[in-house]
């Protein structure tokens, strides 16, 4: 499973994701960490099974988390279903809702591997339900 993580301070979450991989996914998760929006082309997003986006990215980044979300929305709204926002600010939920990202889940830092696992399980269940053909 390919997971894309946009994160300004990778060291703050890296080990939580590592533990998640070892404990719950038999090290089968493949992570790609990026600190700037321009490091991933918008066409590449569909190749990932899940995308974690921190709102506050590197100063070198051309766009912040909202900019990335807007790009995804413009390019392909279906990809938004794979997105999880990872942020340290509790004010972001309001902004996400007002910007039209009510369905995008948010996980607030600080996080450990259990928090991420819980959210991932829910998200993957949701995605698998959506992918099931109508009976």
């Amino acid at each position, binding site marked *: 499973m390919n997971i894309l993580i946009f994160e300004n301070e990778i060291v*703050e979450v890296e080990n939580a994701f*590592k*533990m998640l991989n070892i*404990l719950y996914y038999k090290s089968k998760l493949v992570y790609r960490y990026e600190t700037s929006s321009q490091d991933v082309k918008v066409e590449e997003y569909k190749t990932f099974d899940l995308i974690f986006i921190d709102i506050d990215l590197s100063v070198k980044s051309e766009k912040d988390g909202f900019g990335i979300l807007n790009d995804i929305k413009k390019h392909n709204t279906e990809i938004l279903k794979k997105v999880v926002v990872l942020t340290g600010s509790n004010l972001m939920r309001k902004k996400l809702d007002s910007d039209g990202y009510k369905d995008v889940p948010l996980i607030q*830092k600080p*996080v*450990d*591997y259990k928090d991420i696992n819980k959210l991932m399980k829910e998200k993957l269940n949701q995605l698998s339900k959506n992918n099931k053909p109508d009976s």
Partner: protein
Amino acid sequence: MRYFKRTDLIHKYLTSVLFRIILLSYSFFLISIQDNIFDFYIYIIYFFVYIAIYIYLLIKKWAVVRTVNDYILIFIILLFKNIYLPYNIIFLLIPLFNSPNHTSEKRNNWFLFLFTIILFLLLHFKNPNHSSFDTSTYFTLVAILVLTIISHFELSRARLFKDTFNIYQDIDDVAKKANNTTMIPEIYKLIISKIKEKFNIDIKQITCFEVIKGKAKIKNSSLFVYSSSIDSIDIKSNLNINPLTTKININGQEVYNILTVKIDKFIFLFISDNENTEISIRNKLYIYEVVLLIFEKIVNIIENEEELFKQKQKQNKVLTSKQHYVLEIMKSTHFISNKLGPIKNFLTLQTDYDNGSFKMYDKDAYAEIRKVKKEETKRAKTSLKKISEKIDLLLNKDANPFIPTSVISMKYKAIFMHVKRIWLIDFSENDIKIKNATDTNVDIKIVTNNEVLELIFTDLLTNMTKYSAGSNVLTFDFSKDLRITLANKIKDFSIVYKTLDKTVNDFNNNNKLEINKRNSFGLPHVRELCEQLNIDTILKIDVKKELFITELSFKGNV
């Protein structure tokens, strides 16, 4: 302005009634001392008819007909009497003397003149002793004319004041509608429309310049000015009324200054598009006299607005630094949330490890877990260190704009006035007691901070309004150390006494200050503020009188 006009009108109505009383009394005097054509009782009946007509006309507000009614009375009284007798001619001239008190908006002296002349001629011909014109006839006619002319001058002056007042009233209306934006351009537009209405003079705009170091800088204008050549003109100090002779260019167009009003450092230019716009000297003086008063008011508005703007800017600077501080705190919580990540993850990892939750994993995975755990321990330690550094920065008092750093020297009497003003918001002046107030004592100076003083007394007096059962007293003791005491009767004394006693003991306990600060915000916060200003604070309870007492002693006289 409206109040003033109303007062003037009431005064005029009272004078109108008084004038008729004088007219009737004088009539009675004249018929008493002279031979009359009618019987005495007929005059008396006529007096009542006259009064009835007057009251009717007063209700109907027919001022001109009221004057006609007066002249009929004068005519009937003076009929067949010698009009050349001083007391008779004075009676005829009374309406002219009373002319300034006319309530009518359409007051016209020539109308009075005409009536007086007609009446005089009628009475002259009905006079048994003077049938033909002689010197005294001409003299009287000239005297009536001169009196009318003098009265006319007075009328012109009264109209000037009336017009000024009307414009003033309109300005007041504009000023009332004003919001945050400046109302001055609206006032200029109003003046322009009034000048057009009254003199048919087209004024394009009124623009105000402020003279700074001999150069005129645009201050405000009835029309937006984005460029002007006036700043290159050297302004003479004696400039007034006469327009600038130099050509002016405003917004790229050549315009003409037709009238100038200079008040202090402000110059108001009346600008026309037309080079041939001419104002007669009389109109120029008239406009000048009317607008001078208004522009003096505008100068006050400009100066007040400038002062307010300066104050606002000062406040904004303080507010901005506080806003930055709050934003910094918000950013810091974000930073701490991020840094807590490795710590939280480490704690979960350690707990699972201690509980043996990882024993089920194979050797390779277990080794991997141990490796991650070791790495996370290091990162958790680094995070803790960074959080500590951040907290140190936040707790640094120098960086906190809510803690005052500037102090000023204030006299005891200034502190008294400051505290009194806050006290009077909720309490009575009668409850302020003063001790040892001598000329020397009240002038003792102390180094303090106004804003913090306000915070301290606002907090204390808010508590007083909440918890007092009445009997609130503020005492100023102007001894060498200024002592301010607040005392109030405690509400529900028997119920709250124990809690209050603990609060007082905690507050006064110098060995527990930091704990108090951490655990509550109210009174310990006041104490903290007092400490910043070097004010000793003590709380007391007078059990007998059921009083809660706060004593503040100011130290460090200079």
